[in-house]
């Protein structure tokens, strides 16, 4: 059942690659759209079949593969990964839909995207460390190619930077995985076989730091984030949607799955550091976004800020905060996708992304009124305005984390306020004001171009007013995960005072 989610896109990628040379781009796109649409429907089917009350792994598949390596084809989903899977297939479909109908070298483009989709799905479902790593590395090269072939002006620089950072991340993760298996003396890489309880606190801590840094590059956390603005900005809109919407989630997912649930004791020891780190990331991301003059860069930095909340919530590791972390991952994925999509439309129509040149796009006849309206909505969702999914996720995160880390939580609250600041700057400069009469002869936008944004908007608002659909999947799993984590020692004085 789960294998379908991996192999349909991967074989689909092969199929697309084998499409006849003469096939027009539009048809290649339709083919890819059909394949990803099927995957999406299958994912909905999995969601329906998913037993929400069961905290453990479901739909498990286990096929022996390479016994000597301890590598088995072991899949399963739980409340942590099911939503990530859904997000992955949804955003893949949206990315393909929002790609231009005259993409150059379409067969390569769409097969790479499908390959990524299959790889990411595999990583989210893998119950075997080595298998996870295989899938994790699978998206490395396709993303590098997607950035450096179809990207913007500085695509080569951005592509290489992305490649190096991600490769280092992969190396760190692999090293840590090998360390885990050797130190624990486990027979295979299967997660169920590994027990870290026997390890000394010091070695647990070292391994956990390896994981945090490895995945921290991917999330990205602040000192390791410098690949992100370049990669997001230089990537074309569909690739940016996948990068921000899906790839960043792989980082936080890895952190939760391999950091928190495998090293509960070490996790609780470093949790205060992580919380401050997350809050610092959030503040840094928002402050840097305020300084940007390029709307895509603003959105890219907003991503850093929002992922900081996930780290804070994971560090707090209360049942509520973990639900919040997952909700934030999903809602950030949707919101970032709509923002990147709309920024892509604006860039395609207006021909610039610079705040100083954009103006008056809300103008109903000559501007891009619907696109701007949706951009306002996306910005508000991102800034955590109630009624939309961003607020739900952030509020759960704050509510769940405050009892454990009041100061970092307050810092994150300040960060959301600053998020509103730079989104208002962005919206004010882009959507409001008046059009420049010498330049404002923008081409019209078609309904098909706005469709992805409408779908995402519907989702943002639906999950914002009916948040049960956002959290119901992960509640039992997160409660079970948290049960293993020792009480986090709160050390700073204000927290004692608050008790």
């Amino acid at each position, binding site marked *: 059942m789960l294998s379908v989610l991996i192999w349909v896109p991967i074989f689909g990628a092969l199929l697309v690659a084998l499409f006849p040379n003469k096939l027009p781009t539009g048809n290649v796109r339709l083919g890819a759209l059909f394949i990803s649409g099927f995957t999406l429907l299958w994912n909905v089917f999995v969601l329906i079949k998913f037993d929400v009350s069961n905290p453990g792994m479901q739909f498990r598949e286990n096929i022996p593969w390479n016994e000597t390596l301890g590598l088995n084809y072991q899949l399963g989903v739980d409340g942590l990964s099911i939503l990530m899977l859904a997000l992955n297939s949804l955003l893949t479909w949206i990315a393909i839909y929002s790609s231009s109908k005259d993409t150059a070298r379409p067969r390569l483009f769409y097969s790479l995207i499908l390959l990524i989709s299959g790889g990411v799905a595999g990583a989210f479902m893998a119950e075997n460390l080595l298998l996870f790593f295989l899938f994790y590395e699978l998206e490395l090269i396709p993303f590098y190619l997607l950035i450096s072939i179809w990207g913007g002006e500085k695509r080569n620089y951005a592509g290489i930077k992305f490649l190096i950072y991600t490769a280092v991340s992969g190396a760190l993760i692999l090293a840590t995985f090998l360390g885990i298996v050797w130190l624990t003396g486990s027979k295979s890489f299967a997660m169920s076989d590994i027990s870290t309880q026997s390890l000394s606190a010091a070695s647990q801590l070292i391994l956990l730091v390896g994981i945090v840094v490895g995945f921290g590059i991917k999330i990205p956390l602040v000192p390791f984030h410098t690949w992100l603005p370049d990669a997001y900005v230089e990537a074309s809109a569909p690739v940016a949607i996948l990068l921000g919407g899906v790839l960043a989630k792989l980082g936080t997912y890895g952190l939760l799955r391999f950091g928190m649930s495998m090293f509960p004791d070490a996790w609780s020891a470093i949790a205060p550091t992580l919380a401050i780190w997350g809050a610092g990331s959030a503040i840094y991301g928002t402050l840097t976004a305020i300084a940007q003059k390029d709307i895509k860069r603003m959105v890219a930095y907003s991503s850093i800020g929002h992922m900081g909340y996930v780290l804070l919530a994971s560090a707090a590791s209360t049942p509520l905060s973990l639900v919040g972390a997952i909700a934030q991952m999903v809602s950030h994925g949707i919101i970032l996708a709509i923002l990147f999509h709309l920024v892509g439309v604006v860039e395609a129509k207006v021909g610039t992304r610079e705040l100083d040149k954009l103006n008056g796009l809300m103008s109903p*006849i000559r501007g891009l009124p619907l696109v701007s309206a949706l951009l306002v909505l996306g910005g508000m969702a991102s800034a955590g305005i109630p009624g939309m999914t961003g607020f739900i996720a952030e509020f759960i995160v704050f509510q769940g984390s405050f009892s454990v880390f009041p100061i970092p939580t307050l810092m994150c609250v300040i960060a959301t306020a600053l998020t509103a600041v730079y989104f208002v700057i962005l919206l004010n400069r882009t959507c409001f004001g008046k*059009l420049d009469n010498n330049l404002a002869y923008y081409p019209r936008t078609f309904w098909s171009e706005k469709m992805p944004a409408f779908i995402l908007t519907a989702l943002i608002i639906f999950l914002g007013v009916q948040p049960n659909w956002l959290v119901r999947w992960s509640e039992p799993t997160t409660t079970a995960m948290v049960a293993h984590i020792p009480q986090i020692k709160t050390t700073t004085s204000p927290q004692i005072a608050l008790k």
Partner: protein
Amino acid sequence: MVLTPEKQTTKLPPSTHEFADIIHRLEAGGSMLPDTPENLMQIIGIYKAYAVPMDFYWRDLLYIAEQVFLEPFPFFKYFISDEYLQRENHYAGDNADLRIWRGVGTAHPELLAFMEKGETTKMPKLLHHLLHDRINMEFAEACMRAMLWHRQMYAPVNQFDAYLDSDEYRANADRAIKAYFQGNPAMLGLYKLFPDMFLEQCRQMSYYANLGLFWEVMAPVFFEMSDIYDEGGFKGVPDAMDFLVNGIFAIAGRPIYHHVYIKGECYEIIPKSKGFTWLYEAALPYVEAVFYRTAPFRGTKSYNAQAGQVPEEQKDFHFGILYADVFPVGTAGIPPTLLMQDMLHFLPQYLIDYYQQHCRGQEDILIQLGITFQRSMYNVTSAVIQALRTALLYPLDDPNPKHLQANREFFEMQLNRFCRPEYNMRDAARLRQIQTQDYR
């Protein structure tokens, strides 16, 4: 002293004005709008589209001035009576005083068709009104109010304004007000308490009549121009302008008056015998008030007194169609949108086809036609400038260089209005943009 030969003296040295090209064109009998077939096609097409709603505007303006008058609750003032739709235009049809348009004197057939069906389907007038499937009469009222607010701008040439403040006008108005509210003690009591309240309303009604009478002339002029163009009569933009100039002179002496009909009786608030004429009391104030000045758009300028965006002096107002930014048409706070929507219903097919080929085609037709309208109003203003030059100064082929110099100074003075640096007037004026076809 050696006199230069006469032929050469008729030519002045080139102007050094910023808009020297346009001044030379005006001196050669041209228009501010460049003479291209595309421009001619656009302006004539838009005259046609403008004339049909204008045919409604003038009828309804006169209906309000003469019949609705001081109705305190004029709920149905846009529901023009059949009598006013059948009213013969004085300048069209077989019974015309001075026949400008060869067509019918009653309401234009396209207008009647629109009033019956609108953009939707045939249904009662009230429903058309409530569904906003109608002529935006508010625009005509806004023009009227612009003229009212900018009163006194031509004093002492303009006699109409002065008359509105005279005792004679007060007495005439008093008679009409008392007759209108006869048997209505509440309103009569109010009138007793606050006589100026009704008097000012009455002045406004006089401006309704003034503008209605102005447009009664312009509608047949534009209809006729459209017909002449269809017959292949105009060879270029200057021809179209000359037709307007000739029309202006033919009509210049027509009377401007305000009659009110109360219970079948006519009250002459401004009698025809006062001798107010079309050119000086309606046309010139209209051009000044509506083409140049009007009121700042709510959606463009801040009325904040500290911000100082709106001029203190009315003579510095520069918000008319010659300065208007048409790109935000369709947005909140941009009054010309009303007119653009009105014209949209009556575009001739050749203009629709033309707009389809440019910019966003069908989607932004409202703005494209707005810019065409701006071009056409520059042509109308050119006609007014040429007419004024003819009336006040010298012919263009005058052999006397002093006379030519006077003409040039007059033209330069007119164009200087588009170059003034105060309040960014210079950037607001669209004269430079309409010189090219790229502005659409």
